[in-house]
């Protein structure tokens, strides 16, 4: 039990996927201008990653590893994730329209998101067992969501401020992200 909690804390704070591992920066910058969007994106990533983590892990365990096909892991994973996102989109549209309305526009963006693919690859690289994989597939996106929401809060204030013209928008957002990353170094060594 304790190990899993440590794994989760590690994934959320210490090795925060965005701020320490640099995965998923495009949606991080793209969906953080407004708090509502940030919350939507955060939820979508948690949702998709939990499923993608499981599915890709099973693919690895059932097909790739036994057949010695690890070298085409990249191609299999991306196809699996793309198909999964499509499927989830169709499923939500039909069956849970409320959730679809909330997450809908974010789902296609997620297909080409380093964070999803990255965590699936980390799960394999770290040789996690099923439970560890599951914890990691929830905790990493939770860390993504935490960083995204904090960032959106900061950005909402910065955008209405008096940022000098050349630094506006992405430039200042990157510097702010750097400051967040610096602050998160404080968690270093805690697990």
């Amino acid at each position, binding site marked *: 039990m304790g190990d899993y909690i440590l794994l989760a804390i590690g994934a959320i704070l210490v090795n925060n996927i965005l701020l320490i591992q640099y995965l998923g920066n495009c949606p991080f910058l793209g969906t953080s201008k407004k708090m509502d969007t940030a919350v939507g994106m955060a939820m979508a990533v948690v949702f998709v990653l939990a499923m993608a983590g499981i599915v890709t892990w099973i693919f690895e365990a059932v097909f790739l590893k036994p057949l010695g096909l690890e070298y085409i892991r990249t191609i299999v994973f991306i196809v699996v994730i793309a198909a999964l996102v499509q499927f989830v989109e169709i499923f939500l549209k039909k069956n849970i329209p409320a959730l679809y309305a909330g997450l809908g526009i974010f789902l296609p963006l997620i297909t080409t998101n380093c964070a999803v693919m990255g965590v699936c690859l980390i799960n394999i690289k770290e040789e996690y067992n099923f439970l560890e994989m599951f914890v990691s597939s929830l905790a990493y996106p939770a860390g993504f969501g935490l960083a995204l929401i904090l960032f959106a809060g900061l950005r909402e*204030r910065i955008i*209405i*401020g*008096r940022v000098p013209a050349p630094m506006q928008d992405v430039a200042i957002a990157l510097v702010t992200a750097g400051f967040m990353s610096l602050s998160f170094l404080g968690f270093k060594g805690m697990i």
Partner: protein
Amino acid sequence: MIKRSFLGFVTPKLKHNIVPGPVQELPVPSKVTLLLKEPQNGGNASSLKAGDTVRTGQRLFASPDSAEYVISSVTGTISDVAPYMDSYGRKYAAVTIETGGQDDWEDEFNKEPSLDTALKFFEYAPGNPSFRPFADPEKTIRTIVINGMDQDLLITANQYVVQNEAADIKEGVKALEKITGADRIVITVPENLVQQANTTGAELKTLSTTYPDSLPHMIMKNMLGQVVSAGDTPEDTGVVFINAEAASAIGAAFETGRLRVTKIVTVVGKDGNTTNIRTRIGTPLRDILQACNVSINERDRLILGGPMRGTATYSEDLAIGPDTDGIVVQDEANSSQVTDYPCINCGECVRICPVKIPVNMLVRFLEARLYEDAASMYDMECCIECGLCSYACISRIPIFQYIKLGKYELSLTETAEAANE
């Protein structure tokens, strides 16, 4: 100017002056200027021409079919009718009357207390009461509050009235009951005027002397236990506020048969000395300042109203209106200055705001001209316009001005939207 105290961690309390001085009567001025609201239909002031003679107490109309009127406060000849616009963009006709000789009273005023009478004769009474909410079929007004406390610091005009004209107020209360049929008439006064207020026959409520407890919204909340929703007026909640001076003027009118055409004004000089004077409505500021021995120089400020909520004006030639309770003159050294520094998030405004508005955030949105967000996320419409946030702002941001501008701009877009529908 009240400076921050040494013990800066205590939230500052701004106290009203509560000892109204004696009143100095001013002679009838040689001319008066009355501001007559332009009729809704935009017609010219066709009924009034230079050269017309008017009598004291006479109702002056812009045009024969207009409902807007002013009451002439003197007898004399109209010398000028000029267009005029106030700082809120409302248009008026400025009617200047040269006084000549004795007062010649117009006796059109009949003594029957009825809503019709009130609408016809009291809309320009000193203290500027309004009876229109009673005539509005969409509003049910149950309560009238006679405010015996002045709404700005330093000013003691209404307190003077409670102290010295309680009998007139008593008559006013009776008349108001008849005119409006309100169930409840309340008078609010500071502790030291309780004795006088008790004789007026209205239900007594004692107010604290801390600003802004005398503002209608605060009285509603603290005294009547009713909260006015954001953007609404007390009338929407069924309460009409009338200044003590107006109540007294109404009472006196029914008692004497003559409309009151004088106004009590608290004049505050540069040295902070205050004088109360009584003068005709429409008296130019210049005459009043001269009578009070207040000199005014280049770059001084001349403020109609009090230091927190008044309106600085550009000319001594402007005149007092029925709602002018105070005149404040500030010299340059004592004037507060605004800067273009941004909010540094010190939170002084948040702590001082009587209605708990997150002013630190509000001001950022206003500065960025995001008025709709300011209203929906940061409670702009809750502001009761007390001015305390600007008073305390360490960055000296004109917050109060931003808020008023924001409300104004928002109302423009709202009316534009309503028009498009």
